[in-house]
């Protein structure tokens, strides 16, 4: 799809109102719902391993994680998950092609040094890639820049500019252009509103305005 023609319709219906079986963060739950049972998953930036543990318990997934913080890795390994201390910029190159069914990068893309190289690696390692990130095109971000002339501080971008770990922020449109350059196509996309709920958008223009976060399921173009 071209980034200038609307978003593909979300192919799956919104997750049904199933009772929550664990306290998984809403955006992670949406990612988990994209993942097929019994698959192999690499979660980059897996934090305390909440997604991996959920996937292992609920979907019998074979999971691996990479996490930068020692506290995060310790927490993961201590709960029996297979996680290495490492970083998306330097520790992806060793994995073989198609080593995983899914490579997941949740809320991490904007914090890496070279997002384009990381995304390229993800698309190589995973048959499919799931990426979520805060949308810098969100209307409140634009408003703060436009009216106050200040760097935005929002729920998903809570840090001040001088202390934020987010060094490569992008909009949904920027991201899709990058995917295009990397020969990666969107299989599914989810736009999340301020409360982390899924919302629908008629066009890319609209999605880029109302989406505070976005989640994309990507695959290499054949």
């Amino acid at each position, binding site marked *: 799809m071209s980034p200038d023609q609307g978003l593909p319709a979300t192919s799956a219906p919104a997750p049904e109102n199933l009772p929550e079986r664990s306290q998984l963060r809403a955006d992670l739950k949406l990612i988990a719902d994209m993942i097929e049972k019994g698959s192999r998953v690499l979660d980059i930036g897996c934090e305390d391993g909440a997604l991996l543990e959920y996937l292992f318990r609920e979907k019998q997934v074979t999971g691996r994680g990479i996490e930068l913080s*020692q506290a995060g*890795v*310790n927490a*993961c390994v201590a*709960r*029996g998950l297979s996680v*290495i201390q490492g970083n998306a910029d330097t520790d992806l190159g060793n994995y*073989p092609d198609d*080593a995983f069914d899914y490579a997941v990068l949740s809320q991490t893309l904007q914090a890496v040094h070279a997002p384009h190289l990381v995304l390229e690696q993800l698309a190589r390692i995973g048959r499919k890639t799931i990426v979520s990130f805060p949308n810098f095109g969100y209307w409140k971000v634009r408003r703060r820049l436009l009216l106050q002339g200040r760097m935005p501080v929002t729920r998903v971008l809570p840090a001040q500019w001088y202390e934020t770990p987010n060094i490569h922020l992008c909009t949904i449109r920027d991201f899709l252009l990058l995917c295009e350059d990397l020969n990666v196509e969107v299989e599914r996309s989810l736009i999340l509103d301020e409360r982390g709920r899924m919302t629908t958008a008629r066009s890319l223009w609209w999605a880029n305005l109302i989406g505070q976060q976005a989640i994309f399921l990507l695959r290499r173009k054949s």
Partner: protein
Amino acid sequence: MGLKRQDLAARLDKMIKGETSPALEARAQALPGHQVELGHDEPLKLDCGVELNAFTVAYQTYGRLNADRSNAILVCHALTGDQFMTGDHPVTGKPGWWRQLVGPGLVLDTNRFFLICSNVIGGCLGTTGPKSINPETGQPWGLDFPVITIRDMVRAQRQLIDHLGIDKLFCVIGGSMGGMQVLEWASSYPERVYAAVPLATAARHTAQNIAFHEVGRQAIMADPEWHGGKYQEAGKIPRAGLSVARMTAHITYLSEPALHRKFGRRLQDRKELTYGFDADFQVESYLRHQGYSFVERFDANSYLYITRAMDYFDLASEHDGVLANAFKSTPVRFCIISFTSDWLFPTSENRDIVHALNAVAADVSFVEIESDAGHDAFLLDEPDFRNTLRGFLNGCAERLGIAAQ
């Protein structure tokens, strides 16, 4: 460290005279624990080409093997370690080297697991080594003992595990040289290991580490009491040389912050410098003590052989120079742990193993633990280390359904 000067002087005197302590000898001869003679059914084929048709392995076990023989953990000891991991050591009388981790309710829980630790081939605490009698000559092997490798140590352990009737080890774990054996186990016998925990180790011995070992060996061989390796026949012990080897090595096991914290520039039992070469500083006194006490429990020739085995270790070279090839399609679950202040086996060396395992998409966890204790950190009960290891072992045990007994 509470050693008084007189005590040190007495030890030094004993050292110079080269006497052996009869009490010590007696304790070493009446070694407790298990010993088994192996090699009759299957000779031990060493990397150097020699085959041993009969060799003894001394080992200790802790805990009980469960009915389906699925809870066995093989612990591989480090260069100067031995099979007495916990409890009072039969030779030194001091607590075992891994007392902080091995025991009921501890990380290596003897209520849940069956732990096996054997003295390595080439060692000096019951397993065949250069101190043993060469059946062909009736004399101690000395330098006629074949040069052994890490892989040879693992081959001997594999025969022990066969002898114990264990098909698959729940886990193989060890630090430093023990970690090298863990890697060799996972690479040579992947179908016989469920989980592998190499701690503070490397897939090859670095030039710097070989260099330190060479200093130690030269110190031993420069001691006139070494007698070209035939000191047993001469009734001597190369105490000075072995002490210096231990002192050098001991520095590499610590870190500058740890030494500073422990000793700083503090003086030993004196108010001012003596303007001489006595042990003015606490750190000198400590090292001398480490050296002297080591001589009482370790054989100089064994030290030569075992350091050599570590020097020769390069797992990649056994696999066309590509470390990842050592682990192709491995089913083993790995947990690699390094320590921030370890400059002997730094995190980078451990991370190289992680990268090789990633290259074959192996199941691997990797944690770097914050500690200022240097290489020796793996012997200590650091909370992050303990929790990580416990979590990993619990996760594995849960998947295999191994419960506490």
